[in-house]
């Protein structure tokens, strides 16, 4: 079982440790609800060091990534990042990723912990150029500072960059108290904030500084429990739930990052065919109208009782305070307000299709 550079910090803060994707990670410290609310109203600090970091470098790095990821790498510029995905030949999602362009010949990819080794092998195998691909996951720790007070917390700690003017999905290589870091205005909570890449041996120092300086702003360290309830309210997909190799990027609602107007890329042909034929299934958001919670694996039926789908994520979340979730449902039953039945432990619970996301922050 792997430990992040922050394992001892989690124990010191009373984090409850669970196994996640082969890592020993804190699921909560003070409680999922308190941590969730801290991020929505103030600021929360997450250890995301388990995420993988892969460098793609060399004169043909852009060309390599253009073929192996679905978003348009040529539209990036230095200091700009975008959400993207590695697809298989069927258009299924090998992983969802963020691609950061440091320079024309130097790209960083952040990948899911559970897929890091698989992604590295996939990229190495499908690389049609001489671009160099290096799995640097062990060299980096990563923390996420999320919430309306995140920028206020982080700005005075940074030298060499003005974070207040850093735009969404932009990043800057700078220093925090003498340590080189990469700070990106990104996150997985639906709030403003940053994700910070830092050398593994400097991660604990950075974490302690953020805990100390965040105290007066009401910062709480947050575990995987709050990370999941926050991302679900914001309808941000999670690989293994909304995304998998068996559902295509279009079915999973990733059509907005599939750029058919670029050259060839893995999965393009299959997705073009599917786009022209029409989608049989789609990812929808739902609310339950009766008491209960529908969770991953619960079946969905139409009002006439015919099985039409399956839940991929579901819980009752603190801010929206409703039982909600996402499900793959046959297209004729996906219009907003369509009534559906959710089969939870043999009991039928009424619900309906709603607009995603469930939660959107006020600007």
């Amino acid at each position, binding site marked *: 079982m792997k430990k992040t550079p922050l394992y001892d910090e989690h124990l010191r803060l009373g984090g*409850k440790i669970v196994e996640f994707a082969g890592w020993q990670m804190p*699921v*909560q410290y003070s*409680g*999922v*609800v*308190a941590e969730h609310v801290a991020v929505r109203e103030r600021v929360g600090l997450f250890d995301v060091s388990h995420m993988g970091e892969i460098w793609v470098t060399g004169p043909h790095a852009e060309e390599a990534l253009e073929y192996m990821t679905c978003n348009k790498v040529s539209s990036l510029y230095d200091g700009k990042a975008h959400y993207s995905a590695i697809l298989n030949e069927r258009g299924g999602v090998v992983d969802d990723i963020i691609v950061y362009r440091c320079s024309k010949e130097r790209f960083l990819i952040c990948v899911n912990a559970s897929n890091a080794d698989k992604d590295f092998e996939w990229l190495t195998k499908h690389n049609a150029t001489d671009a160099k691909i290096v799995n640097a996951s062990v060299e980096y720790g990563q923390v996420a500072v999320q919430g309306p007070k995140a920028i206020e917390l982080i700005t005075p700690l940074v030298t060499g960059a003005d974070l207040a003017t850093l735009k969404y999905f932009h990043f800057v290589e700078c220093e925090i108290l003498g340590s080189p870091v990469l700070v990106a205005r990104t996150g997985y909570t639906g709030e403003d904030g940053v994700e910070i890449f830092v050398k593994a041996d400097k991660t604990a120092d950075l974490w302690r500084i953020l805990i100390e300086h965040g105290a007066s702003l009401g910062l709480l360290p947050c575990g995987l*429990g709050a990370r*999941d*309830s926050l991302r679900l309210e914001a309808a941000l997909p999670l690989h293994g739930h909304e995304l998998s190799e068996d559902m295509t990027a279009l079915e999973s609602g990733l059509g907005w990052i599939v750029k058919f107007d670029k050259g060839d890329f893995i999965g393009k042909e299959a997705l073009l065919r599917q786009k022209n034929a029409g989608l049989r299934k789609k990812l929808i958001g739902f609310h339950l109208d009766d*008491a*209960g*919670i529908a*969770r991953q694996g619960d079946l969905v039926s139409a009002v006439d009782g015919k099985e039409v789908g399956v839940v991929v994520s579901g*819980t*009752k*979340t*603190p801010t929206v305070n409703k*039982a909600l979730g996402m499900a793959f449902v046959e297209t004729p039953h996906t219009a907003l307000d369509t009534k559906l039945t959710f089969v939870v*432990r043999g009991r039928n619970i009424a619900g309906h299709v709603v607009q995603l996301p469930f939660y959107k922050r006020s600007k």
Partner: protein
Amino acid sequence: MEFPDDCKYTKDHEWVRIEGDKVIVGITEFAQSELGDLVFVDLPAVGKTVATHGTLCVVESTKAASDVYCPVAGTVSERNDALADDPGLINRTPYSDGWIVKLSGVAEAELAGLMSAEDYKKLVGK
């Protein structure tokens, strides 16, 4: 962590307390701390007959749903409807306001098979 002496306990982390001819059932402080913040309790209907170790109800955190087993056989004569609006009562006050049901018709012999506070405390290693 609390282990009130006026309760009896099960290895599945439920407690019972005798109140007149009724038996009150809830889950222990240890159980709620393991489950985390509860967001939903699927309460049984009043009048439902439950067997010993039968599923009494389901408590759900944001992460998972967990069965609560009935420590003793009986009939649900009352349920704590306050849990519908505030499942966190179980987290905050597991032995008082966080009670789940009251059972009637419980045989005295069944209660004898339950654990004392001291034995339960040893079981959870506190």
